[in-house]
């Protein structure tokens, strides 16, 4: 009746009660259906009791909803001891009347059934417990135990049906736990009675590594995640991990972060990686993948950003020592609280657990950069597709949080591992590949950018050198024999330097010759000029002489005329000239 009013009151959404269990509310889109029973089933040791108990405790602590826990398996003080390690103080909560634990025990050996009966005792105790603390949440763990103690199935089934109706009438959000049956979800078919929400817990061992998983079998009237979600039980309770975010609608950043190697940054048009992108560094053994990762971490910390480093191969101390040899002081960053290492052997637990552990560490430390070194080691605990799906989820999560992530991957020349590369490569935004270049009896490293989404990048192979002062990239030489690296490159450089000197020398000699030629020519021009001048002068001299001669002759003639006439006038002289 209560849920009916809820239905008519809020047509659009089913009211939900948050569980407070990390991740579970995201999968169920808000929690369990309010005022209805939810069935949690699973085999022994998969965490049913803890799950339901956490529901009660979180309800009491976080949502101010008192809860009743009816235990059919363990006594109240046993329960309290069991969960004390998770930091739940059940005794204190009971004293504060926030929870109430009732232990119902039915022992077949001391019971004689003498006729018709019902389970009114259970109802009264439950009703009393609910009313005495105003409980909003109820857990029945595990009600199937009644079937072991009492033999009248017909009565039990009828009473169970009545019980669920009773719980609905009380308006409490209930969890019923049930042991997994061979062919059905629960041994006694409890799923017949609880039809609103059924959650299946599973505890699987693959390759000697156990993983707990959770699946929502059904959730009437609500959208929910349908996958199997791994969950982790640790000192903080249960954490469920959403497998993948359902949409690809993450925020993207145009900010760029430096790789810590300036020459590498310059190979990309934006001068680094996009913030929140994923970067894969792959290469064969000993190519310096960890060095690149550590340099990236160092650069991050120098920007005063936080970096979380997951090491699956080496211990933090080993990495710190080794990176000291290339001039990186990671210990300083650790001391400053900017760098944190999480080292774990991959075989410590299953992939899912790794993922959950990574999630938790990230949520706690809130880094801007995460490094996983190397992801290929994870293959030891899962198949290629497992690792891929794990990484998809991790990348999803990191992109949502705008965290830049760098993976390193070891490539061997075997098909399986190449597949890993291929598998992951479609997920990552940038892929740096380090290759061994064997030439002239030595092995050198060549680095190139396989891809870099959203920016132009150099298509060249650069030689990747590890020096005492860090990492550097050098242009490799393209000689007539192909790419030159290492000493061959040095030799080529020397050769070219020599050539340069010779060339310069040759040029200067030519210049001088030219100069000399010019001088000769100029000298020639000078002498010609002089020659011309003298010729001209000669010519002028003749001309002037002629003039002078002419003048003188005229004068002489005039004088002659004068003389002939005796003392005639110059005019007459002229007439006389004409007459002649």
């Amino acid at each position, binding site marked *: 009746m209560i849920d009916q009013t809820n239905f008519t009151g809020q047509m659009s959404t089913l009211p939900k009660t948050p569980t407070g269990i990390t991740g579970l509310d995201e999968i169920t889109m808000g929690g369990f259906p309010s005022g209805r029973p939810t069935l949690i089933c699973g085999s022994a040791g998969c965490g049913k009791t803890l799950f339901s108990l956490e529901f009660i405790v979180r309800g009491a602590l976080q949502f101010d909803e008192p809860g009743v826990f009816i235990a059919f398996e363990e006594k109240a003080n046993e329960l309290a001891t069991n969960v004390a390690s998770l930091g739940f103080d059940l005794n204190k909560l009971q004293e504060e009347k926030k929870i109430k634990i009732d232990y119902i025990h*039915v022992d077949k050996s*001391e019971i004689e*059934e*003498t*006729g018709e009966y019902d389970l009114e*005792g259970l109802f009264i105790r439950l009703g009393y417990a609910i009313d005495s603390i105003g409980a909003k949440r109820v857990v029945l763990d595990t009600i199937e135990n*009644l079937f072991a103690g009492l033999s009248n199935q017909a009565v039990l089934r009828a009473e169970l049906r009545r019980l669920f109706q009773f719980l609905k009438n009380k308006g409490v959000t209930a969890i019923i736990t049930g042991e997994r049956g061979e062919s059905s979800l629960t041994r006694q078919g409890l799923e017949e009675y609880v039809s609103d929400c059924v959650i299946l817990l599973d505890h699987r061992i693959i390759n000697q590594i156990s993983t707990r998983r959770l699946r929502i079998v059904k959730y009437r009237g609500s959208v929910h995640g349908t996958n199997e979600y791994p969950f982790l039980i640790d000192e903080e309770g249960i954490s469920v991990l959403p497998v993948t975010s359902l949409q690809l609608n993450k925020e993207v950043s145009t900010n760029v972060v430096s790789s810590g190697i300036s020459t590498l940054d310059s190979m990309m048009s934006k001068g680094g990686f996009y913030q929140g992108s994923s970067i894969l560094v792959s290469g064969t053994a000993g190519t310096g993948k960890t060095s690149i990762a550590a340099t990236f971490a160092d650069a991050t910390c120098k920007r005063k950003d936080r970096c979380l480093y997951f090491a699956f191969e080496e211990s933090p101390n080993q990495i710190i020592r080794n990176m000291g040899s290339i001039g990186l002081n990671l210990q300083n960053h650790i001391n400053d609280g900017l760098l944190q290492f999480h080292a774990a052997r991959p075989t410590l637990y299953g992939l899912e657990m790794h993922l959950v552990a990574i999630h938790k560490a990230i949520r706690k430390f809130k880094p801007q950069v995460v490094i996983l070194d190397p992801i290929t080691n994870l293959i030891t605990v899962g198949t290629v597709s497992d690792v891929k799906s794990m990484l998809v989820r991790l990348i999803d999560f990191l992109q949502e949080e705008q965290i830049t992530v760098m993976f390193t991957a070891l490539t061997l020349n075997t098909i399986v591992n190449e597949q890993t590369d291929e598998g992951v490569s479609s997920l990552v935004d940038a892929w740096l590949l380090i290759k061994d270049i064997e030439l002239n009896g030595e092995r050198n490293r060549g680095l190139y950018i396989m891809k870099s989404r959203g920016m132009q990048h150099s298509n060249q192979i650069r030689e990747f050198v590890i020096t005492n002062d860090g990492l550097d990239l050098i242009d490799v030489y393209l000689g007539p024999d192909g790419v030159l690296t290492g000493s061959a490159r040095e030799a080529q450089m020397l050769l070219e330097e020599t050539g340069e000197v010779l060339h310069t020398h040759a040029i200067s000699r030519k210049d001088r010759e030219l100069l000399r030629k010019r001088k000769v020519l100029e000298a020639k021009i000078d002498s010609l000029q002089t020659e011309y001048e003298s010729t001209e002068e000669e010519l002028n001299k003749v001309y002037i002489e002629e003039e002078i001669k002419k003048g003188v002759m005229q004068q002489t003639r005039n004088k002659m005329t004068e003389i002939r006439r005796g003392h005639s006038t110059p005019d007459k002289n002229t007439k006389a000239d004409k007459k002649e």
Partner: protein
Amino acid sequence: MSAEENTMSDWDMQQDSVYALRLFVAGTSRVSVRAITNLKEVLEQHLKGRYELEIVDIHQQPEMAREENITAVPTLIKRLPVPKRLLVGDMSDKQRVMKGLGLINF
């Protein structure tokens, strides 16, 4: 509690005879009423004067139901003589009632 102590001392004195019984019923439901009638019949027939019967209505005393760990109703708890036994049901199966009370063996 005082009644219980009494029966304890009674039991100490007269070794085999006194039955300390407590019957839990739920109000005046059909099975509860039947259980009371049937039980009294058996007791009067076989244990006349040698029993103490307390009838508890768990509707009235829900805390008692918790203390005595009552799930099914009606339940008769035979505390004495030991061993403790629980008789569940409306007591219509007389053979089983007798067996539960330790009056017959089979």
